[in-house]
Every structure is written in C-alpha cells, then in structure tokens.
C-alpha cells in the first residue's frame, strides 16, 4: 500500500445523501476476480445512459470535475453492500480521499484497507467545501499526520481518525503481516477455548 502523508488535490462535489455501494459500482461488474480495472465502471448507471453514452448532467461528467482526486459527498456515503469493489472503483477512477458528513461503517473500513482516507467533517464544513470546489484553482491539502485539511484560502479544519488506522495509512503497512506477529497470542487464545463452538 502506498503511504499517504501530505496529500494535495482538486475535489469534485457529489451533493447526494445515502449514496449506496450499488450505485458506486453496480452488480454487473462484480463478477471479475481481479482487484483492478473497476474505475471505468464507477457510478456506471449514473454516468452513462442505456446506450453507454455519458449523461452530461451527472456531476462527475461535468468539465470542472475532471482531474479531481478528492470526492466530497453527502451523509452516510457508501451504505448498503459490503463490496470492496466500491473503494477499488473509486481509487481506480482516481479518488484517494472521500469527504462526507458521515460514512457507512463497512465502506469506511474498506477504504482504509486500500490506502484511501475517509474524512468525516460537519454538515456545514462539507457544504462550505461543496460551494467552492468548482473553482479551477481551488485545491485542498490534507495533512494526515496532523489530521488537518486546508484550502489555502483561510479554511482549516481538523478531522478524527483512529491512531491505529492513521499509522497504517501513513506508513503504508500491510495489516496481515502485523497481525501475524500476534501468532502466539492467537494460538494461546485458541488453546484456552474461551469460546464455545463446535465447527
């Protein structure tokens, strides 16, 4: 996983609430057995009409949202299905950071496993950013170690992230290799048979 420390980029606004993972990546694209190549299917039914032509009114198809790498959306982003294809497709399309007032639990965790940072801000802060992002020179800087987000025009906020996930993202660690260092503890737990189960 690529480490993330200071991140700079332009943002796109998707002013919709409760965007579910069925919209982020529709089911017909879940049949592949690879992790890569999902970007072209991101928001497929919103981006394209039945003939596969771009819908000009969809947010991400608008000219000012091209070449953006931060997605700003409404509350409860990523709800529904646990499909990790959702962050895979966002990342493959070019989004490394998602900002929203809140995220669905599984989506949030899936993002962090893929070197993406989900940043929860208040409704007002999100609204403030959404109103400004379309300006061509508007850029956001995220300082992950210090947990701050600035726009270079006087807007600065801090955000929460669990220290464990922060370290994982900043160092770009592979979580499984870390857990494998707990092999003894896991074996000891299994031997104690604290849990009743007969499988």
């Amino acid at each position: 996983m690529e480490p993330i420390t200071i991140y700079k980029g332009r943002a796109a606004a998707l002013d919709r609430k409760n965007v579910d993972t069925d919209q982020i990546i529709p089911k017909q694209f879940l049949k592949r057995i690879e992790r890569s190549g999902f970007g072209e299917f991101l928001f497929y039914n919103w981006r394209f009409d039945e003939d596969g032509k771009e819908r000009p009114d969809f947010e991400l198809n608008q000219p000012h949202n091209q070449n953006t790498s931060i997605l700003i959306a409404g509350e409860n982003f990523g709800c529904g299905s646990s499909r990790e294809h959702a962050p895979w497709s966002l990342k493959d399309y070019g989004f490394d950071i998602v900002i929203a007032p809140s995220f669905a639990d599984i989506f949030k965790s899936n993002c962090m496993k893929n070197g993406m940072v989900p940043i929860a801000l208040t409704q007002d802060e999100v609204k403030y950013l959404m109103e400004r992002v379309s300006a061509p020179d508007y850029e956001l800087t995220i300082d992950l170690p210090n947990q701050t987000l600035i726009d270079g025009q006087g807007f600065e906020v801090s955000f929460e992230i669990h220290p464990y996930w922060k370290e994982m993202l900043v160092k770009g660690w592979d979580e499984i290799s870390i857990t494998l260092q707990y092999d003894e503890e896991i074996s000891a737990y299994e031997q104690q048979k604290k849990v009743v189960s007969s499988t």
Partner: protein
Amino acid sequence: MGKSIIEKIWDRHIVNEEENKPDLLYIDLQYIHEVTSPQAFEGLRLKGRKVRRPDRTFATMDHNVPTVNRYFIEDDIARKQLEALDQNCKEFGIRLADLDSPEQGIVHVIGPELGLTQPGMTIVCGDSHTSTHGAFGSIAFGIGTSEVEHVLATQTLWQTKPKTLKLEVNGKLGQGVMAKDVILYVISKFGVDFGTGHIIEYCGEVFRDMSMEERMTVCNMSIEGGARAGLVAPDETTFSYIKGRKYVPKGVEFEQYVQEWKSLASDEDAVYDQEIILDGSLISPMVSWGTNPGMASGVDGNVPTFAEDIIDSKELNRALEYMGLEEGMPITNIPVQHVFIGSCTNSRIEDLRQAAEMIDGQTVQKGVRAMVVPGSQSVKRQAEDEGLDEIFKSAGFEWRESGCSMCLSMNPDAVPSGEHCASTSNRNFEGRQGAGARTHLVSPAMAAAAAIYGKFVDIRNLKKTEQVH
C-alpha cells in the same frame, strides 16, 4: 455495572487489547461466497500464506447461480467466478456447498440450517447481510474482501468496540403484520443510518414471540439501518431450533452449551449507548415506495408529499422520479408487474408457507410475472414435501432453484426498466433488480397478495389474513 450480551460476547473474543489500538478480535466462523472472495484468496497466494482455520470456514455458491437450469451458466465471467471458488476451496481445504450439494443455498440461509451458526459466536462473511446470524445471539457482521483475506490468514480482525443500541418493541403485532414489517417500520422511522457504529440488541415481547426465522428477517436488515450487526439473546426458541442440526454438539455436550449460552443474556443493569422503545401494536404491513429501505410507509398510508417535509426535498424528488410515483399517492394505487419471493431476508420455509397461505387457490393477476426462489436446496425440498410448490405453480408462480436471484440480479433474473416489483428482499436501491427497475420491499404475504391483485393491498382487509400470522 452489568454487561449487555454484546459486551459479553465481545470481551470473550479479545485476543489482544492495547492502548491506541482496536481490539484484536477472534473470529469463530467465516462464511465465504463466490463474489467477494476471489481477490482474498489471490492475496494469500501472492504472499504464500495459508488459511489458518479451514475448519472454521465454510463456503457456498449463491450470488451468481442460475435458478432455472443451474448447470447452464451463459455468462463466462460468472462461470469463472464460480470455478475460482471451487478451485480456491480445494486448494485451501475449505468445505464448499457447490451446485451439486444438497446443502447449497444462500449463505445466510444455509449457515443456520446446518447449525454452523450458534449463540455466542463471532461470525463474519464478505457480505453485509451477515447480520442475519445475530438472530442466534451471536455478533455477526459483514466485512470487505481485504478483511476476508485477513480472517482467512489470521482468524482475527482488528475492531474498535462498537457502541450498543437497545431496541425494544413491546406489545403484540396486529394480524397480518410480520417480522419484515417490524424492521421496515423501524428503519422508516429512524432512517438508514440510525445504527451506524452500533450493534443493536433487539429486545421486548415482539422479538421474544418471534420464531427463529422471523428473528433472522429482522437481524438481516440491521445493516439497512446502518448497524453492522444486530442480535437477539438466545432463549428456548433458539435452543430448540438448533438442537439436532448437523454441526451442533449432541447429547450432554449440547446441554452444557445451552447452560453457557444462557449466561450470555444481558444483565438487568446493563447500560447501552442508546435505547429506543416502540409499541409493536402500532405497526402496519409496510411497503417501500422509494430508493432506500427508509423510504417506506404503511400500506394504509401514502407516498410522502414535499409539504410534509419528512424527507429532504432533493432526495424525495430524485426518488419519486426514479420510482415513477406522484407525491401523496396512496400506496394501494401503486401497480405491480413483478413479484419476487426470495432472498436471505424472506426465503425460508415459514416465509414460503405464509405466501402460499395467502394464495389459497387464487391465481396471479394477468400481466404479473411472479416467482418464488427458495433460499436453499433444503428449503426447496421441504416446500416440495409440503406441496407448497404445487400451490405456487398452479397459481401461476415460477418455482425456481435456490440462490440470490432477483435480490440483486447478478444472474439472468431481472426486472425490466420502469416496471414495479413487489419484492421480499432487503434493498430497493436504484438498479438493484435491474437497470431502471422499481423495487418495493414487502413481507412474503404482502408480496403474494400483490401478485394476486396486481397492486398493493392491505392484507388485513382480506379474509385470509386471520390465518396468516
């Protein structure tokens, strides 16, 4: 201060506890299916890692499988995904209920059927409806593919302790009101994210009175309220359901387990982060009218109006446009062209019995296409033994093989664009049942009635209702 069942199960599964770290939580059981696992197995292979506990892992094929001729998979990519699961299970020594297996079915239907799901366990699956298994008094939650790989390799997950939410529904449900209506009512009242960051404990008379299958319907949809997991404390209903199932301990050992399981119940002085108390007698049969499960109303109600200001006007506008509905229209005026009885929410034997009872010699309305997709091969066999398949078929329903089918339409079953489907599944998201498909979530009895009338009807006004609950 006492502990809730959620904390009790959690604490028993902590392998490692450190400051500034989530808990390293032991996972008793992982279910696997074809869609969210191939990349996890590939990850293991790339790093030369093994599956730590194949004996605590169980796989099935469900999402992609055709429900007409199951051996004829037209879609090459879907077939490759099923083949990949087969190969992965062979390579890593994992039990698999494949298409030839009499145990095959939707992962959340077969786990409980086989007795793999037991009280007090931590259970995961790369599938958000893993919350279903909470019906047995276990902490069961959906995970992403990276986490699937993590559990395969280590049998653990790093998890921050969730908040707890006690959801108590008291009183008695009215006639014709089912488990599905209870959970749809809760989500419509509190929204699709009221449970975020929480595990729900369902308490109160309504859930105590429910059968295991009804509890599964409720817990299944915990995720639609944003909660990763929801559970019901195990009781005699639970123990008698699991007794004698394939993977459940037998004899004296079983009795010992029962004692252990009983001790899981929440202490009387347990404290929850949130508590909600509702009156079950106020619940009507529910129908979703919008594009998420929170957009639902009683069958005797109406689609909301902009003036009522219940839902953000932009969201309401988008939902009404997609669904092709007018603000304020009565739910019973919504036409129905398709009926789907199936999915991990409502495809078990009791669900099929309720639907069959509603049919009672009547036939599917002209112009309606209706199908029943049993949740598992075992449900299908039992339904056929009871003659339910004949009731459905002679009424004009299609009777299919088991699988996820039109719940997410990854296989060839789909609803055409612009048409309305009364569905016993759990998600009415845009495009879920096919591009442009308009899904309405309902109980099995409401779905069967919609098939007969070609629109939604308040089953409480039908004579048959008395027998349905």
